[in-house]
């Protein structure tokens, strides 16, 4: 198969022709400097000229490098200030503590750094550059995969691992032997006049292309496809059931393309919650959280499932994750006549590892005025001047320190009538008056389970009837993970190929001796990209080849030596 190289590939005499090489931007280290890419000559002052010039700049190695470094740099601020996406409470706290710097930083988009215009600009430019870089390389590589290794250089002396031997074997046999040896070693070979030219390691460029294309795939998966997902949070008290519709969430963030109909129908109920803690280093550390749920899809029956921190429950393509947990004191509020106007558990959010919890109870209707309670719940309390602090996450059984609910009482406008969404776990005190508790004349309420207390001004009464558990869950529909995983694997696989497969050329040339002179055989190689083991590989190849030749010569004529094809 002594075909000639394709006419478009006119190899230079030294065999280092770029034609069969992977295509590289002109400022690549292996590239030949060219004028336009290096910006040495002025582009023609025409629009097309400008555009072409701009495009070449954008798809150059230097631009890619600068953009990569900018991307790294641009990610730093997002780690220094809290982000709305990952730490919304941190942002609120930052705003409260540093209102002035907050304004400046916020106008720069630093609190949503990773969706800010400047960060988006960096990665979009980078990916445009990437696509512009990949397409010509892909085309070129597909051609190269079908091309022949280039012509053997006239002089091999200056190439890597040059070795020269003499042998009594005739040149034709030596070349044929070289050819089959190289093929067996995975080289693509082409025979030229008295020599074999061989190349291997196309997988290096294939891997590089897979790597870069998969990066684009990853961006599209996350950026575009990810917009079909949604997330929402919900607090579920023991016994409570949740139905997967937007209105049943405490908070809901739709993706850009998701709608109510993207929500898979199912129901979820918290049956019980069991935390275990271990006492160590003078404090309690969580060991295991297990939420026992029942789930149901339309037409099905309730099935029991256990939800843990690391093992989400999956229902109909939607994941339910355990985020947090805490206590929900159960209270009953009555009007002065004894009519129940409010009854039920209220989730108190934990403030520390020992579940000192704080919460709000809002009673908008049924009493003479709108009433709210705000305060703390401590499962194992010690009392401090500003309220209870818990010293254990377990409910105390010690009669001297029973779980306590400490409440201040407010009256006024709860702001619930305007139809505006209001945070159920916080109280806007602007239009409220504190009528009992810290800094008022009336002491706050201090309730143990079973206690009840009269409200000031004859408003009514409140009874602390029991303690439930609650969990907060993150309900999550994301169509991307499977694709993200696929691209991640392509990225990793492509990377390994392109970093560790050597791409190299080797030549074996046989020069017939004049008259009775022995044949001279030359070996040499050329690295295409990083290839630290090339010299050794050429030496081994030469040795192998000579062994084969010795084998050929020593076997009786007509009987092919072992291994010869």
């Amino acid at each position, binding site marked *: 198969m002594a075909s000639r190289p394709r006419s478009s590939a006119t190899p230079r005499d030294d065999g280092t022709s770029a034609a069969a090489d992977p295509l590289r931007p002109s400022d*690549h280290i292996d590239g030949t400097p060219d004028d336009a890419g290096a910006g040495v000559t002025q582009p023609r002052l025409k629009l097309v000229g400008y555009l072409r010039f701009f495009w070449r700049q954008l798809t150059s190695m230097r631009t890619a490098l600068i953009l990569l*470094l900018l991307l*790294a740099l641009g990610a730093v601020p997002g780690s220094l200030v809290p982000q709305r996406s990952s730490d919304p409470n941190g942002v609120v706290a930052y705003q409260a503590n540093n209102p002035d710097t907050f304004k400046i930083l916020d106008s720069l988009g630093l609190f949503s750094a990773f969706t800010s215009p400047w960060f988006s600009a960096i990665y979009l430019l980078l990916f445009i550059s990437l696509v512009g870089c990949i397409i010509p390389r892909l085309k070129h590589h597909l051609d190269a995969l079908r091309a022949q290794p280039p012509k053997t250089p006239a002089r091999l002396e200056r190439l890597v691992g*040059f070795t020269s*031997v*003499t042998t009594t074997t005739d040149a034709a046999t030596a070349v044929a032997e070289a050819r089959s040896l190289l093929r067996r070693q995975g080289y693509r070979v082409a025979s030229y006049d008295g020599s074999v030219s061989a190349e291997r390691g196309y997988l290096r460029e294939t891997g590089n292309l897979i790597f870069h294309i998969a990066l684009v795939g990853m961006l599209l998966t996350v950026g575009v496809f990810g917009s079909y997902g949604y997330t929402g949070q919900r607090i579920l008290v023991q016994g409570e059931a949740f139905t997967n519709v937007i209105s049943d969430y405490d908070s809901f963030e739709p993706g850009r393309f998701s709608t109510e109909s993207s929500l898979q129908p199912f129901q979820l109920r918290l049956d019980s919650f069991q935390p275990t803690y*271990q006492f160590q280093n003078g404090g309690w550390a969580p060991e295991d959280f297990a939420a026992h749920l029942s789930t149901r899809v339309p037409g099905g029956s309730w099935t029991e499932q256990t939800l843990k921190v*690391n093992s989400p429950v999956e229902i109909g393509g939607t994941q339910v994750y355990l985020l947090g947990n805490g206590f929900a004191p159960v209270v009953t509020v009555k009007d002065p006549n004894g009519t129940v106007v409010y009854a039920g558990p209220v989730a108190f959010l934990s403030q520390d590892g020992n579940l000192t919890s704080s919460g709000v109870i809002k009673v908008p209707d049924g009493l003479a005025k709108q009433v709210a309670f705000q305060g703390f719940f401590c499962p194992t309390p010690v009392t401090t001047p500003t309220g209870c602090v818990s010293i254990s996450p377990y409910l105390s059984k010690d009669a001297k320190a029973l779980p306590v609910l400490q409440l201040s009482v407010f009256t006024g406008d709860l702001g619930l009538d305007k139809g505006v969404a209001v945070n159920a776990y916080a109280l806007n005190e602007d239009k409220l008056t504190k009528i009992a508790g810290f800094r008022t004349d009336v002491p706050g309420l201090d309730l143990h389970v079973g206690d009840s207390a009269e409200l000031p001004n004859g408003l009514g009464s409140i009874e602390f009837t029991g303690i439930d558990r609650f969990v907060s869950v993150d309900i999550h529909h994301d169509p991307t993970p499977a694709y993200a995983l696929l691209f991640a694997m392509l990225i990793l696989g492509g990377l390994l190929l392109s970093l560790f497969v050597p791409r190299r050329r080797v030549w074996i040339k046989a020069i017939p001796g004049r008259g009775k002179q022995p044949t001279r055989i030359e070996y040499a190689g050329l690295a295409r990209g990083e290839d630290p083991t090339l010299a050794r590989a050429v*030496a081994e190849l030469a040795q192998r080849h000579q062994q084969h030749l010795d084998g050929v010569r020593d076997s009786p004529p007509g009987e092919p030596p072992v291994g010869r094809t």
Partner: protein
Amino acid sequence: MTTATLAAYSVVAVYSAMTVYVLAFVAFALDLSKRSAIAQSALASAKAPASLSLATTASSRAEKAGSTAVIDKPAPPAQPTASPTAGRASRFQRTAYALVIVGWTVHLTALILRGLAAGRVPWADLYEFVMTGTAIMIGVFIFIQLWRDVKFLGAYITAIVVLLLGLASVNFYVPVGPLNPALQSAWLVIHVFVATLGTGFFAVGGGLSIAQLLQTRREMGGLARVPFLATFPASEVLENIAYRVIVVGFAFWTFTLMAGAIWAERAWGRYWGWDTKEVWTFIIWVTFAGYIHARATRGWRGSRSAWLAIIGFAAVMFNFTVVNLFFKGLHAYTGL
């Protein structure tokens, strides 16, 4: 043995390992000063050291008919060093290297004891993480010697390891505790372990890049006051070794990023959320991708790419210490 005794023995082993590493550091430093002396005396003898025989062809003619004779063969791949004395290890270096191996054995023992005491892998809080990470740095340093002799980096590596271990033992120490529920995952084992592996390679690569920068300065006529550099490989050789080492680290780091994402998906319901720790893992990954690109960009090979490698390693160290300690995030597993 009880958990407490096992953990106590582990602490003893850590301090012993640190002591041995300090001794190794001293011996490596003595080796460097010995190298300086040699380099200076070579300089003083005024005869420019005959450069290593870089002529690549050693000819031998054997015209025995009927056999294959080698007439031209490359010299064994020579590592061009600036001085012919570089080949032989000094007694100091041999001692230092032996100490490193002893220290490492003790260090591994400390790790195993800590793991036994906790009944799980010993990299779940910051103290353990540093302990494992430094053990891996030394391990990478030792195993790289099988491929290339980079013992001249010994002083650098032992210094970093002693500093980190000392910092961790004094400031981050926590008694053995259970795994935080968010960390109970096979992916933790993989993710954190591979991250520390990558860190080990980046540490060695960073050292090589520093050596490369210094060597470049010397080759351009500077740094006469650091004569031992004359016994180091040439800057280009250093650069090539650094590249090979960092690229391996980069592959591990890529895997770290992915295993981390899988773990995050399991634990928090999203595989990527720009949590502080994730951001830094990303920054490091992109920086080293930049380094690899720089090596392939005209005008950026050499010192500029070496700087990127050093910046990348600095970011790794930052992530290892400051981010773990002071930055708030979901990965708050320092145990402090």
